[in-house]
């Protein structure tokens, strides 16, 4: 009925634009109006002969309005109609009708339905809340009438380098970028703005590339060059501050924080990763390497420490330590976060929707999601972790300085070792008797009888009644399996374990574990299977329980490393270390493990034959005292399926409150020497011979003793450095890949079909020769045929300089993303970037030296009306400083900035008790805030301690995201809270005072000179006469006011921790400080003009 008429009406509108003035207007002004809701980009061509194009004009309408029910998601598809593929859209429907008949809008059901006025008929249905505009309907009609041509989505096609478009005003252009921008402006009948005033432009470049304003000296120097902007860019890109500026942006995407987030929001240590980012930008690491090392540094051949640290990118997500959460639920969240972050950061795709169902808009199926997920599902992590420190996998990441020291110590050790070796080899040892000078000891182990918890002893009897007793406890050991005895190193009885046998005690007596404990034993390893030699870990509770596997486990790895685990709840809340030294096969070795009773891995030390071992720390997040009072097992553990040790043990003892490490090591060394000495010379191993000979030389040759002491000192320093190196979280693959399944509705406990790692095929198939892991994924991402990566990356750098990307939705290049304002320019930049080695500095230099960038930022009322977001780039960028720049600039102008690069995060001023009443009540690291002192108060803002659940308030107020999730662009707000912060935040008031001091000291003798100086520092230009007049009369009024009330002046200049310049009269200083505060609050000062 009425729909027929409607169709014909629309057809007329489509064909004869004159009929409907509204549509005519819309279609003609289309340059400024885009298709999708909120998608206001793509200012375009003259519209007289406008033909809607599928990719640019039609698909956004369909995706927004139709795909939810007629798109890629098979489960939600209605009426078997699919509009995301042409073939499906033009095929007959089950009822014989055609949604789209190319060239024949009047026969297309789609047209009838969208034009209908019948509430039951109209599409999209009213209850969807969606409605097509007149303009959208007219476009659809025209497009179908024109043949309904289909195109692949623009960003899914490999970018090709386009030819430079022809332009009229050839003189304006500086480089190829300008061809594209000018061509579009000329098409729109617009002219670019002239170049900005030099000083303003140089300030813009300086803030853009270093995050700091220029100094007057820099301005002078740069201005002397023939191309000042190029000169400035050169200097700024080489400055260490460049990396800091770029890192700030990247930290948003990488959701970097100094705490784990969630309920407990405990402090973590990831600043080594943050510093890696700063350095990566500073050394201009090619961007494809930047991607590869963060994604898969651990999988590169022989990865460097830096490449391992880089993988922290995928560990920056929040980690939950709330008691009682279900591990797997959160582990799944972490993997999903990696998928989300990786795909937003480098693919500009939000694949997250496909976690629960096929994507409604983009061609990503749920299966695709889990294939992608499989790449990130393979590290040894736990859902509940991070209650005190970093969550595994971790590594110790010594700083550059520590690494240098380590290298030096290594050299010292090597030199000393060489000299000792010479001495050992030169001497003829045949007749040396060792026994006589060895300290005489009847002890067979290092610990005394006091504080014993376990002492293994074997009551001799006939073979059938052999009893293994615990001399420290009332009951004998229970033997599981067949027990054999033999003579131990001191002919004491030793127990032989055949890989099936184990012994266990009753529960051990409770003791105060805060005073530490030591375990010592003679150990002989006979096989290569991984097995516990000692365990009190109680696996007898459900894996989800809080005390799962609480206790100590000492294990030997297949290659002989000693692995020590001390857990509250395995594996989340535990310490795990592994020695680099190995137990040889078939030899008795004396092992001591000492724990200091605190909660850190650095207090857990291992001594082998009297020498402390170097070790790797695999877990370091113990939550408190660990009870060792559960039943102890020798040769195995209560873990279901635990292997049993193959070897022999003697003299196993566990004591509380042990002696100092040095003393234990000394005694252990003596024991090892005695054993070596007691061993008949022909049977001694080379290691034993060396041990004895070295001891002999130490005793008898002072010069050797000196070298040996030098060696020991260096080694002990090296181990100390190793223990104190900062920890960082990294990616580390499990030896056996964890299988990945499609999760029904994204739920952790609803596994369906198994999938293998793979990438969304429609973009580019996985490179054939590449490994199916994150490294292969990195190759796929950085392949020049990957249509998205380079576009997404160059777009984000563009966004960083212009405020808005060429694609405004820098996080979404999919169907629902916005179309690029300058598609050819984007492709040109992307291809040029790849062809020039993904060179970021080159890209930035290219952009800032373009005439486009150099334009004056002034606009006009007409232009504001026509292109409010400056997408046509008819004038230069004008942006409020970021939160970080705003504070850094104030520090810089006032001379307060402490310019150190990198290091642990710092604690600048924060309102008192900001955490009070908000943070978790427990006293976890990071639940209280202690302000830094001295120069640490004045570091650049990116070093500010970032607590996810209570972020630094001023930075938050200025739109720095909380970093709970990946953020590709910041909102830009303008609020009264911002005004309050720049008016009254301590750091701003203090900076105003220090800037005032500079004005008085350096500005000249008169008020007008001084205020000019201050104004110029802040804005890079002198004030105009009327500005000068306004400011100087304000200054005069403030001087008058403070003369009347000198106490007020003193109070104002007392704000902040820095000393004030006592040479300046407080009344004068206060008035200037008021003025400086005003200058720091000027719109021009807080803006990159």
């Amino acid at each position, binding site marked *: 009925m009425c729909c027929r008429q409607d169709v014909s009406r629309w057809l007329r509108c489509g064909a004869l634009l004159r009929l409907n003035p509204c549509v005519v207007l819309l279609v003609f002004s289309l340059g400024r109006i885009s298709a999708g809701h909120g998608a206001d980009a793509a200012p375009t061509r003259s519209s007289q002969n406008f033909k809607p194009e599928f990719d640019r004009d039609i698909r956004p309408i369909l995706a927004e309005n139709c795909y939810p029910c007629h798109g890629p998601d098979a489960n939600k598809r209605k009426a078997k109609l699919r509009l995301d593929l042409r073939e499906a859209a033009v095929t007959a429907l089950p009822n014989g009708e055609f949604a789209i008949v190319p060239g024949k809008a009047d026969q297309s059901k789609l047209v009838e339905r969208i034009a209908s006025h019948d509430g039951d008929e109209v599409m999209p249905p009213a209850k969807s809340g969606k409605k097509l505009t007149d303009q959208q309907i007219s476009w659809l009609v025209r497009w179908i009438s024109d043949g309904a041509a289909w195109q692949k989505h623009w960003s899914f096609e490999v970018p090709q380098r386009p030819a430079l478009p022809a332009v009229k005003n050839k003189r304006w252009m500086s480089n190829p970028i300008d061809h594209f921008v000018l061509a579009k402006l000329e098409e729109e009948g617009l002219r670019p703005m002239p170049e900005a005033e030099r000083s303003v432009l140089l300030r813009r470049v300086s803030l853009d590339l270093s995050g700091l304003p220029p100094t007057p000296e820099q301005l002078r120097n740069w201005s002397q060059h023939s191309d000042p902007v190029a000169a400035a860019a050169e200097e700024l890109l080489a400055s260490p501050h460049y990396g800091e500026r770029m890192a700030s942006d990247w930290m948003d995407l990488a959701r970097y924080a100094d705490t784990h987030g969630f309920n407990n929001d405990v402090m973590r240590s990831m600043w080594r990763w943050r510093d890696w980012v700063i350095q990566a930008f500073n050394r201009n690491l090619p961007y494809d390497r930047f991607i590869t090392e963060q994604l898969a540094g651990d999988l590169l051949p022989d990865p460097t420490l830096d490449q391992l640290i880089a993988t922290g990118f995928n560990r920056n997500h929040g980690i939950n330590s709330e008691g009682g959460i279900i591990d797997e639920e959160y582990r799944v969240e972490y993997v999903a976060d990696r998928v989300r972050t990786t795909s937003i950061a480098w693919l500009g795709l939000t694949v997250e929707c496909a976690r629960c169902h096929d994507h409604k808009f983009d061609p990503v199926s749920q299966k695709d999601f889990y294939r992608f997920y499989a790449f990130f599902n393979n590290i040894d992590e736990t859902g509940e972790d991070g209650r005190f420190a970093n969550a595994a996998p971790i590594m110790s990441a010594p700083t550059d300085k520590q690494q240098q020291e380590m290298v030096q110590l290594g050299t010292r050790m090597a030199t000393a070792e060489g000299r000792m070796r010479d001495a050992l080899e030169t001497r003829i040892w045949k007749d040396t008797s060792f026994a006589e000078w060895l300290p005489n000891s009847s002890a067979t182990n290092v610990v005394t009888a006091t504080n014993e918890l376990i002492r293994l002893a074997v009551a001799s009897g006939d073979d059938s009644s052999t009893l293994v007793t615990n001399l420290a406890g009332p009951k004998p050991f229970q033997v599981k399996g067949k027990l054999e005895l033999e003579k131990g190193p001191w002919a004491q009885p030793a127990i032989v374990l055949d890989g099936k046998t184990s012994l266990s005690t009753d529960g051990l007596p409770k003791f105060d574990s805060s005073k530490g404990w030591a375990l010592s034993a003679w150990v002989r390893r006979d096989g290569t299977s991984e097995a516990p030699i000692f365990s009190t870990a109680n696996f007898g509770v459900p894996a989800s329980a809080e005390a799962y596997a609480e206790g100590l486990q000492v294990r030997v790895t297949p290659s002989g490393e000693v692995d020590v685990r001390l857990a509250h709840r395995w594996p989340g809340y535990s310490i795990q270390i592994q020695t680099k030294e190995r137990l040889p096969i078939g030899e008795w070795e004396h092992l001591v493990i000492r724990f200091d009773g605190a909660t850190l891995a650095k207090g857990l030390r291992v001594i082998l034959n009297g020498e402390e071992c170097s070790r790797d720390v695999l877990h370091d997040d113990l939550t408190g005292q660990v009870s060792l009072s559960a039943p102890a097992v020798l040769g195995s553990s209560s873990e279901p399926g635990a292997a049993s040790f193959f070897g022999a043990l003697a003299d196993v003892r566990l004591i509380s409150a042990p002696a100092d490490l040095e003393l234990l090591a000394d005694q252990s060394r003596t024991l090892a020497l005695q054993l070596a000495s007691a061993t008949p010379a022909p049977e001694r191993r080379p290691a034993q011979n060396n041990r004895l000979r070295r001891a002999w030389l130490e005793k008898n040759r002072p010069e050797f003793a000196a070298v040996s002491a030098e060696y020991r000192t260096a080694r002990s320093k090296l181990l100390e450095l190793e223990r104190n190196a900062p920890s960082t979280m990294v990616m580390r693959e499990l030896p056996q890949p964890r299988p990945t399944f499609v999760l029904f509705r994204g739920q952790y406990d609803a596994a369906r079909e198994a999938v293998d790692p793979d990438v969304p095929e429609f973009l580019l198939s996985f490179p054939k020769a590449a490994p199916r892991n994150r490294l292969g994924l990195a190759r796929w991402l950085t392949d020049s045929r990957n249509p998205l990566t380079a576009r997404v990356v160059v777009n984000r750098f563009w966004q960083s300089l212009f405020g808005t990307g060429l694609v405004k939705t820098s996080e979404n290049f999919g169907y629902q993303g916005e179309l690029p304002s300058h598609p050819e320019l984007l492709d040109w930049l992307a291809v040029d970037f790849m062809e020039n080695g993904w060179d970021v500095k080159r890209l930035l230099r290219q952009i800032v030296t373009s005439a486009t960038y150099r334009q004056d930022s002034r606009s006009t009322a007409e232009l504001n009306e026509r292109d409010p977001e400056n997408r046509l780039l008819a004038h230069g960028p004008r942006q409020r400083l970021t939160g970080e720049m705003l504070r850094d600039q104030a520090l810089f102008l006032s001379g307060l900035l402490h310019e150190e690069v990198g290091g642990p995060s710092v604690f600048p001023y924060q309102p008192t008790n900001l955490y009070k009443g908000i943070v978790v*009540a427990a006293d976890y690291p990071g639940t209280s805030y202690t302000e830094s002192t001295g120069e640490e108060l004045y570091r650049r803002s990116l070093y500010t301690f970032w607590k996810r659940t209570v972020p630094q308030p001023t930075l938050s107020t200025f739109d720095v995201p909380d970093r709970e999730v990946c953020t590709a662009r910041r909102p830009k707000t303008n609020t009264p809270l911002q005004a309050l912060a720049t008016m009254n935040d301590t750091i701003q008031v203090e900076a105003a005072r220090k800037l005032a001091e500079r004005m008085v000291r350096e500005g000249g003798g008169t008020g007008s000179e001084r205020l000019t100086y201050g104004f110029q520092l802040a804005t890079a230009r002198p004030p105009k006469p009327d500005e000068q007049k306004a*400011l100087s009369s304000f200054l005069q009024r403030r001087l008058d006011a403070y003369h009347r009330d000198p106490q007020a002046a003193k109070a104002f200049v007392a704000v902040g921790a820095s000393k004030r310049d006592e040479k300046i009269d407080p009344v004068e200083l206060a008035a200037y400080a008021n003025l400086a505060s005003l200058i720091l609050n000027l719109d021009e000062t807080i803006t990159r003009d």
Partner: protein
Amino acid sequence: MNEPVLLTRRNFLARSTLGLGSLALGHLLGGVLQGATQNSPGAVGLHFPARAKRVIYLFQSGGPSQLELFDEKQSLKARFDQDLPDSVRMGQRITGMVSGQARLPIAPSKYGFTKCGQSGCSIGDLLPYTQKIADDICVVRTMNTEAINHDPAITFFQTGSQQPGRPCMGSWVDYGLGSENENLPSFVVLISTPSTGTGDQGLLSRLWGSGFLPSRYQGVKLRSGAEPVLYLKDPPGLDRAGRRDWLDTLNALNERRLQTVQDPEIAARVAQYEMAYRMQTSMPDLMDVSHEPESTFQLYGESARQPGSYAANCLLARRMAERGVRFIQLYHRGWDHHGKLPERIKVLSTDVDQGSAALITDLKQRGLLKDTLVVWGGEFGRTVYSQGSLSHDDYGRDHHGKAFSIWLAGGGIKPGISYGETDDFSFNIAENPVHVHDLQATILNCLGIDHERLTYRFQGRHYRLTDVSGQVVKGILA
């Protein structure tokens, strides 16, 4: 005084009222109403007539036990220390805190209940003041959530998602409706700590964060004491006259800049500085309860004189409602009673009972209750079985999301009713379940907002508070 080239303040404000209109002056925390209507905020609602203009949400953080407060189960007395039948638990997952426990023994409430008011609604004797307002409130006994741990559960209630990253309810409302006043933020957060001294669980600023909405929609957390809003106070040594002079000069220079570069952001900035200046007076004025009559403190209790107490925050909530603050979010911490529940719930009940009831009474007296929606409740309830050892006088309860109680009152809500029934164990829902998304949909509905239509496009998709579900609970609407 000021130079002829530079506009005076009065000139500027006159101009900006014309030039900017509601752009900056109409909405204190910033700017343009997006995705919303041009209608004057709150008057007619965004999508249909509003029954409430504002919300006061009394969030009880930690998970109050419904078994002691609102969901009376007489029959449990006979089942003391019996195991929870498997037929009731039905494989429901339990937290890691009790999964190591051998038994799940039933713990009846130590405290009694009274049938109150005309409606005869059963309310726990721990809440004598709430019992008196029984005819003004609607008790919902069948709230349910999938979350069983604090962080995801509270995040779910406040943002509609268990995982971080989404805007909270107050931000959604602010985004949808804008401000009703020119001198105060439109979304305000107040936090009190229990008199037991410890809040146990963290409150996360994401709970009042704007997620992917512009940050101007985030809640402003007020602090007790002299500086309720961060950086509100001028530095020492700068008096009001000095600040005014400073601001006039700044505005004049910024206005000059606006003429030169024609960037409307500058005009907005000038307006925001003016708003900041006004807040410097209006906020302390709001917080200053010294002029409240004696009767106020009789109503709210003496603790209302103690800044930062729950009762004091309830009083502030009323003062903000009077001043047109759109969304007033209170949090009271300390309801997480895994052990010693009888002792601790008594303290918490005393903490919040009088203040909550006083707020309702006070709003009603002032004619504000009819267009103010008040919600009282936590992120989940607690288990019928005891966590840890059980005696008649001492027991603990673990988190329980499958059924728990909250109450609502005021604009749009049917007073004096209870809604929904749980089973004999207050474990499962027998009738009329109300999911978290349903509650959210209902709250928005009272404000004249269709929860399916208040959306924001982010990362290529339209997001809404209720994600992909949520049904307005018609049975509790007036």
